[in-house]
């Protein structure tokens, strides 16, 4: 983008390329460029600041579209007598995106904010999944509940919900096994885990977060659709933003499904997590 130059077709093509290169996807990129073309006509000077500012605003509004429509539902809205604690978060997503690591980071973040945390190792399938989460529990001082290797993940979630209540913790974070959105039986298993948690703690889970790897291309949109359909997503964690991939697919996800991004992962360490800032994210797409 060159400051002060008029917004000609060549400049618009360059912006379209930047968006596509960031994995925003063809349809959403074309849409944003068309919005920019119209807006530029009204601009006094379509310089770099004005262009990036407009696109950042346009992208930012896609992320808040859903949340303005639906105020955050609290447990006591569902059942006036029920306690707001423990607040339950389920972490879901396809294989290798960073779910277990994200839970470790979230535990650290919550503890630093003075909250107590319990971690549930409901991935009973993958080799050393429980051991991996246990190390994060040790690193953060969070409580830890695990199940038998090969056991039923729903019963681990149930046991953890019981433990969260009896120990009076503020937050229960449930780790689940990676699974492809195309594996119907595994997606059904996830829905079952959710139902079991809901039965034990009416109003729970308060959050179901889909962990999306920033390296992922258009497939993340299918992932979001199918996971949302099965368990209802309240947000996304976008990981591995410390690499060179920009994770623009979350813009298409926000636009189509109104699912906001709640956190970003920016490394493999405990503190490598931040709350999502839509404007900062949008500006980061442009060099």
């Amino acid at each position: 983008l060159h400051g002060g130059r008029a917004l000609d077709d060549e400049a618009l093509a360059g912006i379209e390329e930047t968006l596509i290169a960031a994995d925003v996807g063809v349809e959403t990129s074309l849409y944003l460029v068309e919005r920019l073309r119209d807006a530029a006509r009204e601009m006094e000077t379509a310089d770099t600041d004005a262009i990036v500012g407009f696109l950042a605003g346009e992208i930012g509004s896609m992320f808040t579209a859903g949340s303005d429509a639906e105020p955050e539902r609290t447990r006591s809205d569902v059942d006036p007598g029920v306690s707001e604690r423990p607040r339950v978060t389920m972490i879901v997503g396809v294989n290798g995106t960073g779910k277990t690591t994200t839970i470790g980071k979230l535990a650290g973040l919550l503890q630093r904010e003075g909250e107590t945390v319990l971690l549930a190792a409901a991935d009973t399938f993958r080799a050393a999944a429980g051991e991996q989460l246990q190390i994060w529990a040790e690193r953060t001082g969070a409580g830890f509940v695990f199940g038998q290797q090969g056991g039923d993940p729903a019963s681990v979630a149930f046991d953890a919900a019981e433990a969260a209540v009896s120990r009076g913790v503020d937050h229960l974070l449930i780790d689940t096994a990676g699974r492809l959105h195309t594996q119907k039986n595994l997606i059904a298993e996830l829905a079952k885990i959710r139902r079991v948690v809901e039965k034990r703690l009416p109003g729970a889970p308060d959050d179901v977060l889909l962990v999306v790897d920033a390296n992922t291309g258009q497939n993340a949109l299918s992932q979001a659709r199918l996971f949302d359909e099965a368990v209802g997503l309240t947000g996304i964690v976008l990981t591995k933003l410390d690499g060179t991939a920009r994770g623009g697919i979350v813009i298409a996800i926000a636009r189509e499904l109104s699912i906001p991004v709640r956190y970003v992962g920016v490394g493999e360490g405990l503190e490598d997590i931040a709350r999502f800032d839509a404007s900062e994210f949008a500006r980061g797409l442009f060099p």
Partner: protein
Amino acid sequence: QLSDRLQSAFKSLTGRGRLSESNIEEAMREVRRALLEADVNFKVARKFVDDVKVRAVGEDVLNSLTPGQQVVKVVHNELVKLLGDTGEPFRIPTGTPAVIMIVGLQGSGKTTFCAKLARFLKQRGKHPLLAAADTYRPAAQDQLSTLALQLDVPVHTGRPDADPVEITTTAVEEAGARGADVVILDTAGRLHVDEELMQELERIKAATKPAEVLLVLDSMTGQDAVNVAQEFVDRLDFTGAVLTKMDGDTRGGAAVSLRAVTGRPIKFASVGEKLDALEPFHPDRVASRILG
């Protein structure tokens, strides 16, 4: 369907005739869009389309095909060629021991692939030794050890504070004594832009002199595949690649980006979490998947 979308580009062309330049222009825009939607990098898609344009212009429209189908056929054939034609089967390395080094980004499927490769080699009469050289990820050595136990394959681990380079060299030194003729090195996932960790891989390669260095790439990788591929081929000159999670519904355009940028053969497709879920990479099937 791409051929349906191309039909509108060829409304004016009926029956016998030659594909004209303007027919091709519009058709190639559709092809380029299909490739982008399949996650092929935009620069790779543009170059591919430009190369194919040259081949498509002047082609005789076969009687049996509509012009749209004809263009798809040309595009499909060119894509198959780019992906590696009939494919290159994995050659079992010989050596005492032979070393195979496994590298890639975080979470791509390396540790699981190391176990799959061990099973593949064992089935073909080799005696693999797995080396757990990831000292960073919590319980990484546990993970590989668990898989090794499932396969009844020996595994070499180090202390949690051990130097990964040292773990690999020790594994190679001890291979003979453990009756192993192939050593498979599982390395920690890392960013291609992490200078220190990329240098660590260079040191491992220099110290163990692998017969094969395989890049493990998640098949759902988007536009950034070109950057990852470029950096890994520049720094490590890998000999082949493995595309993982091909059992999903991702179109797999990362395969095209990888081939266009590095020219290295894609040797395997990992098609599931189980240790028997490993296939040779089929350029023809993947081309059909990419074109949707």
